[in-house]
């Protein structure tokens, strides 16, 4: 049960509406010309061709959840009241991680260096949404397998740095998921590199 599943290629297109939303687009309010829309879409397309989504997940048993601390198989312990409450009805958790790879980050830096911040912000938003979408995809994948067991995942997920679940926990999740296998590193501030990399935890009902 405790072996990490690696997803070398997560097949996902760019979630256009979410990317527009992240860029501040508001339906019925924001006014963009057909040309601006075409240019933005082309940048999203360019960005997505530079993104190589990869991910991993690990299913672990909860040995204890006392409302403040969650102990998980493999000698893991997370201290967070909010996370405890989130997982209160679960006996197992899924740790998951995803990265969009380094090519897109190099492209963002390159565009910024060339004073093309328009492209840089669209690339940035595309990478953010696609990386987040990769976690969504992993959850769907896990749900497929769990359905056979009569189980399902909680519909949401929790990330280190959110509420009282300290960012320091990202290192624990990073190591447990062996994210270095896909070239992801973590710095002393617990920031994942490449920057468009994420981790999360959710529960199994």
């Amino acid at each position, binding site marked *: *049960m405790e*072996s990490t*599943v*690696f*997803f*070398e*290629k997560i*097949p*996902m*297109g760019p979630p256009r509406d979410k990317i*527009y939303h992240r*860029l*501040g*687009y*508001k339906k019925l*309010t*924001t*006014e*963009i*010309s057909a040309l*601006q829309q075409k*240019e*933005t879409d082309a*940048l999203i*397309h360019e960005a997505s*061709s530079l993104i190589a989504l990869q991910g991993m997940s690990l299913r672990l048993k909860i040995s204890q959840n006392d409302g403040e601390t969650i102990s998980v198989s493999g000698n893991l312990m997370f201290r967070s009241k909010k996370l405890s409450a989130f997982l209160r*009805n679960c006996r197992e958790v899924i740790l998951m991680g995803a990265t969009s790879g380094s090519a897109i980050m190099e492209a*963002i830096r390159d565009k*910024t260096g060339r*004073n*093309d*911040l*328009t492209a*840089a*912000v669209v690339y*940035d*938003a595309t990478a953010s949404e696609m990386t987040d979408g990769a976690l969504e*995809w992993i959850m*769907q*994948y896990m749900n*497929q*397998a769990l*359905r*056979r*067991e*009569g*189980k*399902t995942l909680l519909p949401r997920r929790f990330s280190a*740095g959110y509420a009282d679940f*300290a*960012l*320091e926990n990202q290192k624990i999740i990073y190591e447990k998921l062996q994210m270095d296998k896909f070239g992801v590193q973590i*710095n*002393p*501030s*617990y*920031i994942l*590199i490449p*920057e468009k990399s994420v981790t999360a935890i959710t529960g199994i*009902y």
Partner: protein
Amino acid sequence: MIAATKIKNLLAKKILILDGATGTELQKRGLPAGVCPELWCLDNPQVIKDVHAAYRKAGAQIVYTCTFGANRYKLKQYGVQEEVYSVNLQLARLAREACGRETLIAGDIGPTGLFIEPFGPLAFEEAVDAFKEQARGLIDGGCDLIVIETMIDIQEARAALLAVRELSDIFTMVSMTYEKDGHTLGGTPPQSALITLQSLGANTVGCNCSAGPEQMIDFIKMMKPYATVPLLAKPNAGMPKLKDGVTVFEMDAKTFASFGSDLSKAGANLLGGCCGTTPEHIRALSRAVSRKKPTSPVRKSISALSSARGFLEINENSPLYIVGERINPTGKKSLQQELTEGKLNIIRQMAQEQEAQGAALLDVNIGQPGIDEIQTIKNVVGLLSSASRLPLAIDSSRIETIEAALRLYPGRMLINSISGEKEKVSKLLPLAAKYGAMFILLPLTGGELPKTAKKRQTIIDNIFRKAQKFGFTKDDFVVDGLTMAVASDAHAGRETLATINWCKNTFKCKTILGLSNVSFGMPGRPWLNAAFLAMAQYCGLTMAIANPASVEFTNVQKAGDALTAREKASLQFINHFSQQTAPQTPGPVEKSSPEEKVVKAILDGEKENIVVLLEEALRTGRQAAELVDEVMIPSIVRVGDLYEKKIYFLPQLMAAAETMKKGLAHLDPLLKKTAQADKGKVLLATVRGDIHDIGKNIVALLLKNYGYCVIDLGKDVSDQVIVSAARKEKPDVIGLSALMTTTMVNMKEVITLARENGINTDFLIGGAVVTEDFARSIGANFARDGVEAVKVVEKIIKRH
């Protein structure tokens, strides 16, 4: 095989009933959580026999063995990976014992839980080997047929199907699992999976799990027009719901069965149940469809190609299909270089560009001396399987290269090409048949180019007869009309056109041409090519290998399609030419003043026009400083206002800011002579430990636009460097950014260090996790975004 014939005969007469869920039935009978169901069944044989028998009694004519997870990867989790054959064999025998000879036993193969090359880490051949291991046990255990089910990865379904096909000609069903959006999690639509799997030899294709019966009707409807095989549907008992911490399927047997009629009308030939269904559901379903007549497949063959994420049906009356020709190293030094170095960036780019330019499929030729062609084609097929939705045509003179591509490609591909040469016919036709590929029939034989249409017709006919022996029909190939240069033979064009005409009207098959050969060695090549294309379209040409970026080609193609009344071609012609930029004609006299044009350029982010427009404004006698203060700054302020009101979104704000920046840079030499001193100096940095700097970069750009002098120290800047720079530069404001909670705290340390060094400059902070309260708590100002940052800086400087 007797069972296969029996199943085919049954399917011609009635809708066959499959069983329902096994896992939930076992749980009801005591299967504990967390144990291996297969091993538990072997320890409790009567329980699984009871489940099988219950489904048989309920009316199931085909019962699945309880071997869904009995592959080496799943069994490894329980330490019994060495017992794959034995577990499958025993469970198949238990199913037979429970159901007797009257009920058909389907050996069940489920997913490994791993993704297969080129989509995942498991090597394709290793996956094939693992499925063979399982299938051997099932076949030796006496199964009448094999079912490969709940597949979310088309490549895994292919690996399993190939494994079974390489062992036996046993009747095989393959069923995929689709999400609500009508795709597998791997992004494969039902039509694409169907085309791939039926051409690879699946006797039945369909869907199971994930969806309830209502949604599965849609999936069956999507597949039916393309199906040459019967379709199966095994839906869940509705969608799962969480009730008191337990997943439940609420659809009762009666409701479930009520969809049987619509599923059969939609074209399903085999019906059963998946998660949440019980013998009661199957009994009700069996009754509901017992008198329904099955809808047979609507066709015996299909001209269609597929990729992992898309498909292409090739119809005679459709607009001409363009086969993108650019992925070919001949004459392309950069591509040659990349292939030599094992890089694939240019190929990815070429694929995406051709797709955007309207290619229907991609021709792939990687023939080049000095490379490992087999490994290269595998890498390219792997890349393009993810990077493009378009099906591939593999263009190689080497049989091994084509075979490597056929084996790995997760779709139905087009072989370019099979000629009448003995070796090609004897080796490539069996390969095309095994992998279910379409092929380009090249009318060449005996090492000679047949000059006349008559000779070509004879060769085409001969190759077709040989292909028929492998089960091919005229839907399975397209004939290359053979384009020869008119420079060397004045009749070359005419003979090719006559070949196309004969194929279309007499032989009744589809055709393809590589057009540009016709003009080789001639002047005015685009004109010859264009005329040849139009004539070939008139003769009925189906596909052309060409560069979709060629304007001449696409213009003539659209016109030719419209004139030959191809399906929806007139509309496409109108759309094509409506989108092209209208030629510049003298319009009404431009009434905008130069200043107004500058304003518009900034508001619209017309970076490319701003310099010309500023020059125009300067020629009217306006001073550069006036243009900045009275025209440009108010424009960018208006942009900021529009952004704050959400009328503009971030790319518009950035485009305007970049236009402004370019304009200011252009005016800079003039401003030095006349402009006032800078509005103020701002020092910016992303704090120690943080590498996220896009927000800071936006702030820097906007501040520069408003006339501030910005010193940007970059990202992950130490406290000491920031303080030293502050001491040296004496800025009016120090701006700090951080994205994470762990780095946000470093802002406080920077401010503390600055104060200890006697620096009393105002601080402005921002970033995703930074709040106004936090800013106040550390004695700093706060800005939500770049536009607000400019306003806050303005206020701070005014205060001084």
